[in-house]
């Protein structure tokens, strides 16, 4: 339970951070430390240099408008929960952050750290995927923007290379969102986490004559079930342009496993098969919550 000896340096800006990263054989970025430090204590990670970026101004702050939000990498999960602009324009972020770990971790853990760690059961990657977000990276070849589906490579890997620093995540605006999570009874990670982000189009009469909005540009993504977070394309296709009735949402949710990719993830408490078994229910309830359809929301 004791980390190996490690050097520590605090970076003032992103170029300095990248220089420090290049200065050691096995340097690691440190922000909230809630993934890295426990791994170091358990002997599962042993970097020779920690580059602390938690005070870098360029990585902090948020910009929100009607088109969406750009969230700096060292933004904490707690800050996502405490931002009226995010709640209005990119509600999937606060909706997900609310379910992320516990208060202590939310107060320290950062958005950039969470995305870069890419733990297969992490909540936030699902939210960013569902909303069609983009991860901004500053690396040896300059700055680049990576669409979320390209960023996550499975089993904790990302496209990040040596010397890369996640600087921000950009999330397009959406009108409706929800996150529903089944929590591992021991670890607290998601066994099934489902993020929904979509726009609601003009209302039209459904078969019963009631006004029901249509679902536009839906994004539905899952965490915890396989080796990576991923969008559920079959569910999205079944929803796009449809009215948000209980029957439509239930029918779409039934297609949750159709496009599920990658090996199932399970353990002695919660098997992968069980995660997949309950996935349609979690998707259905997330859709119901996102679109205000109480019949299927629970």
């Amino acid at each position: 339970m004791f980390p190996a000896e490690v050097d520590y340096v605090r970076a003032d800006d992103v170029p300095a951070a990248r220089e420090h990263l290049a200065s050691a054989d096995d340097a690691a970025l440190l922000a909230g430390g809630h993934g890295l430090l426990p791994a170091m204590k358990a002997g599962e990670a042993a970097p020779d240099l920690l580059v602390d970026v938690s005070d870098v101004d360029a990585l902090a702050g948020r910009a929100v408008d009607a088109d969406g939000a750009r969230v700096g990498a060292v933004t904490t999960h707690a800050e996502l929960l405490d931002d009226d602009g995010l709640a209005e324009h990119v509600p999937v972020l606060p909706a997900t952050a609310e379910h992320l770990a516990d208060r202590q971790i939310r107060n320290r853990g950062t958005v950039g750290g969470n995305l870069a760690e890419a733990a297969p059961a992490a909540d936030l990657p699902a939210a960013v995927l569902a909303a069609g977000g983009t991860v901004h990276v500053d690396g040896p070849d300059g700055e680049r923007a990576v669409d979320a589906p390209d960023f996550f490579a499975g089993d904790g890997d990302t496209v990040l290379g040596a010397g890369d620093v996640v600087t921000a995540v950009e999330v397009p605006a959406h009108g409706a969102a929800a996150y529903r999570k089944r929590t591992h009874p021991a670890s607290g990670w998601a066994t099934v986490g489902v993020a929904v982000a979509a726009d609601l189009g003009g209302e039209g009469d459904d078969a019963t004559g009631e006004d029901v909005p249509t679902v536009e540009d839906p994004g539905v993504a899952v965490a915890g079930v396989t080796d990576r977070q991923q969008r559920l394309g079959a569910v999205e296709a079944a929803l796009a342009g449809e009215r948000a009735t209980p029957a439509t949402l239930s029918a779409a949710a039934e297609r949750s496993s159709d496009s599920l990719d990658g090996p199932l993830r399970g353990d002695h408490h919660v098997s992968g098969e069980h995660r997949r078994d309950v996935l349609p229910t979690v998707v259905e309830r997330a859709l119901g919550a996102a679109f205000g359809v109480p019949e299927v929301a629970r």
Partner: protein
Amino acid sequence: MSGVESGPAGDAGAETDADGREAPTERREDPALLRGEAAFTDDLVPDRAAHLALVRPPHGHAVVEGVDATDAEALDDVLAVHTFEDLDVPGLLPIADERLDVDVPAHPVLARDRVRYDGQPVAAVLAETAYAARDGARAVDVACDPLPATVDPREAREADVTIFEGAPDNVALDAEMGDADATDAAFADADHVVDVDLENNRLLSSALEPRAAVAEPGSDEHAVRVTLTSQSAHGHRRKLAHTLGMDEGAIHVRAPSVGGGFGHKGHHHPGEALAAWAAMREDRPVAWSATRSANYREGAHGRDHRTTAELAVDDDGTLRALRAETDAAVGGYCLGGGGVMAAFYGRLLAGQYDLDAVHCRTRCVFTTTAPVHSYRGAGRPEAIYVVERLVDAAARDLGFDPVELRRRNLVEEFPHETAVGAEYDSGNYARAMDRALDHVDGRPATTGDAPTADDAPAADRDAVTDDDGLLRGVGVASYVESTGGGFESGVVRVDRDGGVTVLAGTHSHGQGHGTTYASVVADEMGIDPDRIDVVEGDTARIPTGTGTFGSRSAIVGGNAVAESAREVAAKARRVAAGELDADPADVTLVDGEYRAGGDAVAFEAVARAAYGRQPDGMEPGLEATTFYEADGTAYTFGTHACAVAVDPATGDVDVERYVAVDDPGHVLNPTIVDGQIHGGVAQGLGQALSERATYADDGTLLTDRMTEYALPRAGDLPAIETDRTETPSPHNDLGVKGVGEAGTIAAPPTVVNAVVDALAPLGVAHLDMPLTPERVRAALADSR
């Protein structure tokens, strides 16, 4: 510095009990615990101490071919690496070998040539710092040749795995209780036979504080002083003497503040003995503390039974007889009383019912797992789970209301000797059951009209769910608990200034003995509890002791200190009578002073006078020592009820209400009793709903840390509603019964009965614990 010592907590509120006596509603122990001022073992490490860490290979079963300490010894600050060959003491943890059917070796504190469970220590690293010790332990290279493992007690009897040459079927002990012929006859004569096949899941002890020890050599009177996490200072002294080959008198054991016991701090562990040995060898203090993971891997674990059981029932609902056959894991070694505990678990198999015959066969089976030993409840939860699942199954199969079937068969006359040899002292089982039903509006269970397993498999889920889509069920379980065995010591000493010290051989590691004993002694002596200090857990201060386990402390410790207090009070009255020149019978104690006629003398003056010359040949001094043993076992009892909602779509079980009605005999302190019930029910709910120690097929423990072992969190638990009846035990002067384990006994069958009630309309007859969402979903899928 002594063991646990507690004085008054300050402005404690008070509550009046049934007899009009006041009992504090706040525990005097809590301020120091809440402020972080309580001293635990690892807080008491001297600066000059060396640190010990153990090397634990990750194999469930392996031949140890060699230990290469070269790299470890080369590390800065590593002082030495030891294996069993280095020990110049016996180094064998006591096992109950004289009670076993087979001749097997004891548990060496460091494995000699074989490890028989994941985490069994093989080498000990001594270093200048705790960090260096653990780095050193990582650097020790243990060459192991893995052997096949067998982790399930039922499979281990058949497995082609030999754990000990002396135990070819891996059976340590094959025990029978009750009358097999009478039981067979009753079954042959009965109208129906109902059976269950169930697992009592293996549990890990998750006390807040992992085990730790600090050993210091060469005090004036002792060869070594060992401060450690113990439920019994004197018990640990005896075990250390055995392991170290020393006289008990040469060892001073202190148990300071201890963060929870639950049984696993009553057992003896290698780290404690090795720290003591190393301290004497190096002539230097040595500290050891287990990581959470080491604690989990080393055990001792709890439960782990596989049982088939049958109940013979007549048409009219008369329960005739019960028989059970159990395979109980004892792990890689049969530690201490672990085998005996399992072998005699059947003693409670009559439950609350008046059965003609009971027979139980228990095989204690070696498995390549951590040893199994007493864990809060220690055999009683296993027995009551069998009884209460059987009775519920009988009600469901034969169309009785589960409560009515129980009520019809309750023991009503006391004392009562059961068909399996338990002597129930006193009880009013129906009263506690009625009280529980009052809390749930009198109808906690489905009626016999409900669909049964036989005719319901095709039941439509929508037809049996509530409007919110949930399946609801209610369950009850009625239990008895045997409490209060063995003797205990209690000293009450009044100093010359009137200060009172109570010394008891029990140990409080969460139970609040300081609060309870002070109030018992204050009550007997007629003085303010704030004047009383309570001391436990120090072999140099306390004459002797047995310790705290088995729901015994209030009975034997409480009565021991009460008896000493009565003796001291009587003598103080005689001294006061001398001072007042009155007849002792005319002396009263009011507001801290003795009065007779118009005269008064303060308690302090009486204390002072007691140490002067006494009239009539009376000895000076004001102190009494009692070694107390109850006249017989006190059988606590009660009925718990709960309501659950099961989400058929996810398998989630939500305990919507939980009501516990317990009868702990005379209640000394309602707050303490409530606390014990709350904690026990929480542990029982953990067993029922989430906890299960799980081994991989290769014998490595999968649940080796808190992120892998599903201990319930506070937020996972329902509000626990408690109520009581009070039926005093005739076997001890205070009329008390133990209550420390009641919750762990009652909660598992209560919850399982409720969930099966919820799922029964869909054809589910039984589920094994823990009732995880996955198991619930699987049961629903199987039933369709």
